[in-house]
């Protein structure tokens, strides 16, 4: 391994790879990605593979919308030899209480003002979009046809290959043991293979963002939380959109491959790095999803697993430089939506690192917002 780099990125998930690609694209020469396991082995490869613009804050909507525009042209932009499998059949979000419907009404006004082609629809219209949906008790829904699915393994691979072509060195199975800081500045990182001197270290460590920050002496208010998920056998195309119910806490989408992916947010999940799986999760999700989408009763579950949401106090990411350690940058705390925002995260953080004007204003996503109490709370997380 070389002992000098212009930037070292810790974490080879979609965000680390997107930052690396964008830094190289914008002209930084010696960029290196260090990943303790294999690429996309953390939250990226474990996620629900959904991408949506239907968020509740201007920041998330803008980041998600610009990211979707990038997913639309990603195969070409990155010169990918396969297909990232972007399926744009929409997200159908269901409201079962007056409060949810009220929130959706507000969301739709904000989303439409930012150019998102979303509509508030009736239960009957929702049933027209997903004919096998049980509309009992449903008060209303929102639908955006541009939202959908992207294959996380392929999107990560597309970024990795494009980054490599631009000269980025990617080192899987290489764990960072320490970050060297002197006089309030990043100086390098230490791995089992030796020390790499660098003025810039980027923390894209996903579920382990707090631990990596601590190596640089920077405390951040992120924590990890297990989210469980399952996949069925593949079947013929049956369901276009992702269906989300915040009331039931579940999401369910058919992938282009034909399998159904579904998951559930558990409000009682303890903080931590547990990546186990439970029987209770299977029975709860099966009960809810077969009530909501009855024909799924006949589908066979083939696998269950889990991944980490890396949470922040306001469910919005931290993107920016740590004020107390110059050269230490963060793209962490995505709170369950890091995959779908990665195209813009990589571009914006690379612009920030290189001192360029950022394409979207992201100063309010800095770490300092928590000390100042300037939280931007996202209401629409499963």
């Amino acid at each position, binding site marked *: 391994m070389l002992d000098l780099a212009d930037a070292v990125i810790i974490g080879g998930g979609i965000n680390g790879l997107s930052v690396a690609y964008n830094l190289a694209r914008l002209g930084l020469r010696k960029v290196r990605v260090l990943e303790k396991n294999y690429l996309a082995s953390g939250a990226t490869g474990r996620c629900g593979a959904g991408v949506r613009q239907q968020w509740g804050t201007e920041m998330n909507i803008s980041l998600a919308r610009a990211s979707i525009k990038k997913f639309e042209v990603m195969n070409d932009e990155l010169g990918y030899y396969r297909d990232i499998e972007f399926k744009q059949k929409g997200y159908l979000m269901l409201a079962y209480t007056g409060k949810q419907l009220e929130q959706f009404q507000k969301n739709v006004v904000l989303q439409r003002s930012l150019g998102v082609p979303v509509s508030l629809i009736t239960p009957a219209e929702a049933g027209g979009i997903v004919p096998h949906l049980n509309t009992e008790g449903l008060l209303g829904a929102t639908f955006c046809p541009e939202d959908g699915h992207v294959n996380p393994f392929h999107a990560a691979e597309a970024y990795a290959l494009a980054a490599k072509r631009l000269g980025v060195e990617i080192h899987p199975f290489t764990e960072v043991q320490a970050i060297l800081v002197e006089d309030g500045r990043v100086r390098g990182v230490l791995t089992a293979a030796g020390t790499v001197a660098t003025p810039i270290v980027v923390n894209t460590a996903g579920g382990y963002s707090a631990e990596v920050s601590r190596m640089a002496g920077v405390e951040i208010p992120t924590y990890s939380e297990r989210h469980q998920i399952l996949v069925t056998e593949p079947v013929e195309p049956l369901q276009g959109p992702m269906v989300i119910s915040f009331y039931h806490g579940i999401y369910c989408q058919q992938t282009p491959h034909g399998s159904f992916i579904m998951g559930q947010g558990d409000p009682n999940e303890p903080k931590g790095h547990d990546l186990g799986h439970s029987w209770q999760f299977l029975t709860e999700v099966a009960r809810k999803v077969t009530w909501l989408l009855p024909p799924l009763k006949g*589908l066979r579950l083939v696998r269950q697993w889990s991944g980490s949401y890396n949470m922040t106090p306001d469910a919005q990411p931290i993107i920016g430089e740590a004020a107390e350690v110059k050269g230490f940058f963060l793209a962490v705390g995505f709170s369950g939506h890091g995959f779908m925002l990665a195209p813009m995260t990589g571009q914006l953080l690379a612009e920030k690192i290189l001192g360029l004007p950022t394409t979207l204003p992201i100063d309010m996503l800095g770490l300092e917002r928590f000390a100042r109490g300037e939280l931007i709370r996202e209401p629409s997380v499963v």
Partner: protein
Amino acid sequence: MTEEQEDQIIICRCEDITLREIRDLIRRGYQTMDEIKRASRAGMGQCQGRTCRSLIAQEIAQMTGQPLAEVRIPTFRPPIRPVKLGVLAEAEE
């Protein structure tokens, strides 16, 4: 073996993945079954890799020179056999 012959040999029957696809990924630098599984879907189907797992391990060992015993095996995830969601929905806690 020619590429045409490699195309004729199915390694993962559930997901229809050929020997050529597996070898191409190893040539691209993938050295673990975890990576090959995620890049190709081999081992993600109905049988969850019962047939292809050992075949892929052998290919990795042969092509990379790793001893077969040291090729890392992916995590075995539940269930052991596919189960209908309707059956799970009626299961006791």
